[in-house]
């Protein structure tokens, strides 16, 4: 019976892991279907920094340069340019800092990697701690006759 319980416990962990990984993969791969040009423009404009503003995306600003960039993005999308091509145009004109999302390569790529590694380490540490507590709990032997005698004698003394 305990073997069946252990197997069932492992199976539930494996199932949970499969569901978790599947959800992450589907979430990451899903593109939400075909986007309209307006949606594509808004999405792209939210990743480009307004050159005249303080930490604001082009999609959020109404200054002249932001309006012109939004219009230009719409024109480029209509002309069939890809998101990467359009972003590259702005990087060429205004420098890498025009893009609000950090670069995924080089030293800056650590911004993406470090949180994942930290989360992995934290989960591993919690798992190890649980394992140790369980081992400690299992290593405790059942009370012997001598233990019961000791408790009973102490009780008698107290009374």
């Amino acid at each position, binding site marked *: 019976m305990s073997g069946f319980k252990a197997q069932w416990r492992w199976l539930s962990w494996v199932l949970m892991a499969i569901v978790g990984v599947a959800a992450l993969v589907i979430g990451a791969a899903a593109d939400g279907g075909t986007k309209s040009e307006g949606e594509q423009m808004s999405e792209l404009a939210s990743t480009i920094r307004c050159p005249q503003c*303080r930490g604001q995306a082009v999609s959020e600003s109404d200054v002249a340069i932001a309006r*012109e960039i939004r219009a*230009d993005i719409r024109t480029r999308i209509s002309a069939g340019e890809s998101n990467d091509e359009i972003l590259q145009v702005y990087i060429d004109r205004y420098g890498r*800092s025009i893009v609000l999302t950090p670069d995924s390569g080089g*030293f800056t790529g650590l911004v993406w990697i*470090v949180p994942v590694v930290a989360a992995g380490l934290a989960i591993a540490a919690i798992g190890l701690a649980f394992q140790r507590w369980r081992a400690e709990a299992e290593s405790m032997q059942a009370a012997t006759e001598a233990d019961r005698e000791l408790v009973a004698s102490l009780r008698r003394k107290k009374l």
Partner: protein
Amino acid sequence: MRHRAAIAAAIVAAILALFVLLLATSDTEQTGSANFEIINQIGPDFTGPTIGGGEFSLREHRGDWVVLNFFASWCVGCRVEHPELIEFSERHANDNVQLVSVMFGDTEKKALEFFEELGGEWPTLVEGTGRIGIDYSVTAVPETLLISPSGRVVFKWLGSRGVTADGLDEAIVAFSAPAPDPVPAN
């Protein structure tokens, strides 16, 4: 047990230190800073209809000094500098210096009214000009660029007070001067 706690503390400290390092070395340019990516590059070509029915093509002005001015009717600095641009265009009516204005972040109607009100006889582009501004890394008007006869952007003026006729002439003289001979090695 203490040993493990020390290791855990060291890992946390290392991760924090890494974040601090990332923040310290990241690009902190966040606001309205001037963009000079275009300097020393060949000015992107553009062609378009001008006020009054003509057409302007930058390519056709290779061999001339070109002063490329971005403006808008709502821009106070553009109004301040406009008489200076008129003065500059009159000074260079008969030599190889070409002034061209390009509307940025405005409507054609208002840009036309701006020129009707303040004057100016040089080529001015008002139709579909947003792309030209982006090609020249414009951030906010007024911005003026000086393009050398070889087609290279050599200088950029920014700021709410705009340019002056004398300032433009001084820049042309400065950039016309031949580069000094290299200092011989001892």
